[in-house]
């Protein structure tokens, strides 16, 4: 719901908000420039002294004004023609033209009304309102995604546009809220929705009738410092009934031109004070530093607009159209979806299509629409649930648990839960687990154990589909292609074989870079830009389900490299390990932005076993800045499956790799990578305390063992893998 309130104002008002932000940022420079260029009054100078100096130079002076920047302007009439100048307060003489800056005036009009008068002001007010709504809803989304306001600055994961969007937003949001609220206030004042009537004292009924007092003898202005002055208007020449009008930051008063007495005074009203403060906060006039900061924050708006549109497009592409959805009262199978960005809907659509093809009538709906009383003919319910942030319900599942808990008794039809998540998050499939727990607590019968899909793996989904088909007594073939990726033919240029002697035939396969179109190169799409740790999907012959492999090379290495172990009966690994140079495979690129050695130049601890060495070797190869890297590598036997053995020694001698620690499992004293970690516990703990980033790649069991061992090692320091994960300092690529 919040997302919709963020998305639609964002898309609709994108141009308007961008125009507002850019013109506002440009305007923010002027108060600072003013303050730098205007001659400033010396400390302690009084209005009387200043007036004396100016009148000595311009005897017919009729008004002196001081801007919040400290710029003093005098206006006079000489020989019936008006004159004005910026005044140097030290001498009282003119020091520059008083004409308003044309560029600033034009920008001001453009910023507040698009040069279209009152109608334009209202349009821009809508823009300011959109900005406020975007800021508030965006802040709520950031907080929800991070798992609470306390985690406002938690490290970010996800795609580059998503990270950049939030990265800018969580800093700029303060300025944008301030700017938009003050803008709306100023519009309200302009249209007289809010009052801003200057408190002017009543004009004195009686004056002394004398004229010509010296400034030095005038009590009030003799003690009024120049930096509190707003404006001093002189009496109309030759009119003894007129007075001096003095405006300061405290209020307005009339002074007798014969005696200098204060005839009347009115303090600034509360409304005026409020409005002045708001004006200052919005324009930066009188608060130049704040103005500049707000201007810089406003510059984030166009960037957030662009990344926001990219995020929206990505989400839209992932959401399929559902054909032939049965009514809830007639369907045999109810499929409920809890999705945040839309990718889970795509899986649901695949399930819907496969079940329909198998002769089932299926009703597909968001989880938040749970309504068991109306599922008259349903025989089972399937829940596909993603997780948002720290285990929260995703957008389309809001209220599901409340509805479930509010039921008198559990439905009789059995329930199947499938969680979608990312194993590298601490709260992996946490919402699906919460749903399962709530259902069990209600006594809701299950059809099969809860399944989990890691990072949208089509293989895991297909496997789960076979289990589901078995439980339902039908043949179910779930072929899921999340987004039809544009594939390329990759040509093998070389291969190195390992591990045959230890029953783990493994090959390092190196392919030539495929040709990329100019557009892809410009947009950085596909194979135009990739790093070690990104994934390639290989489409084996005979199956439409792609298999994902971690890349061991980056684009700048000039080749595409992966490490593949031949699995017994494995379709894809069988085909890959049978490739000879010159053969081709069909592949596409998928980014894996979370598994990158991002960040500062702090130390890296890389932990991997078997084919998991692939991306880790790629990181070492790309370590041109010679960041300290400690690599823990688990192998079976050094003479057989020591992948990248020579290269690693070479990189070590070149300073790309600080330390290589191997654990060998086929020796008289078998050692696994977690044993090697434990053997090096003191240094590992020290490195992590000093801010090292840990990256683990390899099989699931190995990763679990590593996590347990690290928990042991770090316990004395009060750290856990979970806290490191939350900080983004512990990432896994597990298969």
């Amino acid at each position, binding site marked *: 719901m919040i997302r919709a309130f963020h998305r639609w104002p964002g898309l609709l008002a994108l141009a308007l908000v961008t125009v507002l932000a850019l013109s506002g940022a440009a305007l923010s420079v002027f108060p600072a420039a003013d303050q730098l260029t205007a001659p400033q009054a010396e400390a302690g100078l009084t209005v009387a002294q200043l007036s004396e100096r100016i009148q000595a130079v311009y005897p017919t002076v009729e008004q002196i004004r001081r801007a919040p920047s400290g710029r003093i302007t005098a206006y006079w009439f000489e020989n019936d023609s008006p004159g004005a100048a910026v005044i140097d307060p030290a001498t009282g003489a003119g020091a520059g033209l008083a004409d*308003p800056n044309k560029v600033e005036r034009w920008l001001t*009009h453009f910023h507040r009304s698009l040069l279209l008068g*009152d109608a334009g002001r209202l349009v821009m007010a809508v823009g300011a309102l959109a900005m406020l709504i975007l800021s508030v809803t965006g802040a709520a989304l950031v907080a929800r995604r991070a798992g609470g306001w306390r985690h406002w600055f938690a490290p970010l994961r996800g795609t580059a546009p998503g990270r950049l969007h939030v990265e800018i937003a969580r800093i700029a949001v303060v300025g944008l809220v301030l700017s938009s609220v003050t803008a709306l206030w100023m519009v309200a*004042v302009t249209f007289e929705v809010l009052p801003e009537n200057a408190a002017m004292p009543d004009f004195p009924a009686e004056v002394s009738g004398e004229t010509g007092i010296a400034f030095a003898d005038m009590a009030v202005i003799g003690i009024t410092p120049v930096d509190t002055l707003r404006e001093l208007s002189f009496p109309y020449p030759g009119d003894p009934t007129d007075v001096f009008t003095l405006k300061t930051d405290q209020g307005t008063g009339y002074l007798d031109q014969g005696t200098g007495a204060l005839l009347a005074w009115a303090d600034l009203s509360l409304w005026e004070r409020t409005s002045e403060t708001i004006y200052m906060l919005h324009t930066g006039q009188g608060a130049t530093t704040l103005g500049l900061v707000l201007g810089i924050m406003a510059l984030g708006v166009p960037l957030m607009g662009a990344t926001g549109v990219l995020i929206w497009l990505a989400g839209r592409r992932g959401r399929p159209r559902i054909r032939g959805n049965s009514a809830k009262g007639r369907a045999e199978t109810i499929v409920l979806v809890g999705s945040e960005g839309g990718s889970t809907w795509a899986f649901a659509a695949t399930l819907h299509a496969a079940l329909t093809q198998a002769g089932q009538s299926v009703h597909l709906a968001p989880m938040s629409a749970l309504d068991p009383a109306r599922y008259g003919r349903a025989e089972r319910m399937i829940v596909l649930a993603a997780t948002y942030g720290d285990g929260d319900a995703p957008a389309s599942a809001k209220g599901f648990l409340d509805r479930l808990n509010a039921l008198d008794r559990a439905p009789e039809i059995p329930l199947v839960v499938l969680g979608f998540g990312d194993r590298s998050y601490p709260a992996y499939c946490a919402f699906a687990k919460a749903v399962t727990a709530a259902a069990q607590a209600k006594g809701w019968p299950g059809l099969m154990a809860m399944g989990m899909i890691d990072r949208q793996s089509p293989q895991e989904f297909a496997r789960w589909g076979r289990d589901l088909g078995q439980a339902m007594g039908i043949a179910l073939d779930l072929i899921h292609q999340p987004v039809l990726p544009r594939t390329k033919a990759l040509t093998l240029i070389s291969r190195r074989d390992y591990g045959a002697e230890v029953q783990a035939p493994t090959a390092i396969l190196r392919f030539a870079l495929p040709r990329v179109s100019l557009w892809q190169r410009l947009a950085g799409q596909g194979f135009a830009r990739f790093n070690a740790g990104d994934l390639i999907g290989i489409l084996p012959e005979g199956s439409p389900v792609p298999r994902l492999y971690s890349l061991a090379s980056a684009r700048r290495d000039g080749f595409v490299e992966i490490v593949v172990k031949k699995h017994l009966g494995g379709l894809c690994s069988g085909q890959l390990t049978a490739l000879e140079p010159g053969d081709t495979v069909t592949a596409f690129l998928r980014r894996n932005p979370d598994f990158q050695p991002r960040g500062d130049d702090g130390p890296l601890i890389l932990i991997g076993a078997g084919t998991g060495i692939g991306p880790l070797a790629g990181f070492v190869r790309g370590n041109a800045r010679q960041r300290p890297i400690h690599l823990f590598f688990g192998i079976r036997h050094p003479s057989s499956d020591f992948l990248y053995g020579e290269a690693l020694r070479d990189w070590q001698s070149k300073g790309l790799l600080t330390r290589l620690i191997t654990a060998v499992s086929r020796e008289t004293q078998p050692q696994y990578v977690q044993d090697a970690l434990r053997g090096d516990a003191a240094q590992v703990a020290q490195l992590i305390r000093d801010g090292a980033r840990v990256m683990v790649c390899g099989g699931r069991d190995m990763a679990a063992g590593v996590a347990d061992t690290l928990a042991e090692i770090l316990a004395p320091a009060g750290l856990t893998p979970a806290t490191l994960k939350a900080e983004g300092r512990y990432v896994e690529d597990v298969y």
Partner: protein
Amino acid sequence: MKSLLSTLVLTTALTMPGLAMARQVTLTTNLTSYGGDGAYLALYVTDASDTYVGTLWMAGGKSKYYNHLTGWYRATGGDTAQVNGITGASVGAGRSLEITLDLADALFDAGYTLHIDASVEDMRDSPNEVSVPLTSGGRGTLVKGRRYIADFSYDM
């Protein structure tokens, strides 16, 4: 005095045509090219003793700026009721403002003075740009302003 004032207010606020003892008067104000935003102009009348009698026209719609029309603001205390129904848009630099009103005959040749206060955003305030006695003989005479008004005249 009171009857005069009410006649004036009646004729200006409601601009009733064909009122007995009234004549149609056209006020023309030409502005100089002073190089700024639209000017706020207050046209008002004082009597022989310099006492405010009433406002004829207010060019400029935002009452928060009225305090910059210093003479008018002092005379009226900023009372926006004085300009209800006789308010128009501000007048751009180099443009002219022409208004036609039914003014009571009694306003002419009786010591009444028409004043125009002017003000422009971010530029100087200019009270009493023009102050011209209302006389039958003065019609058609061009009166120069001080800062923003090139010339002013009334005709009937």
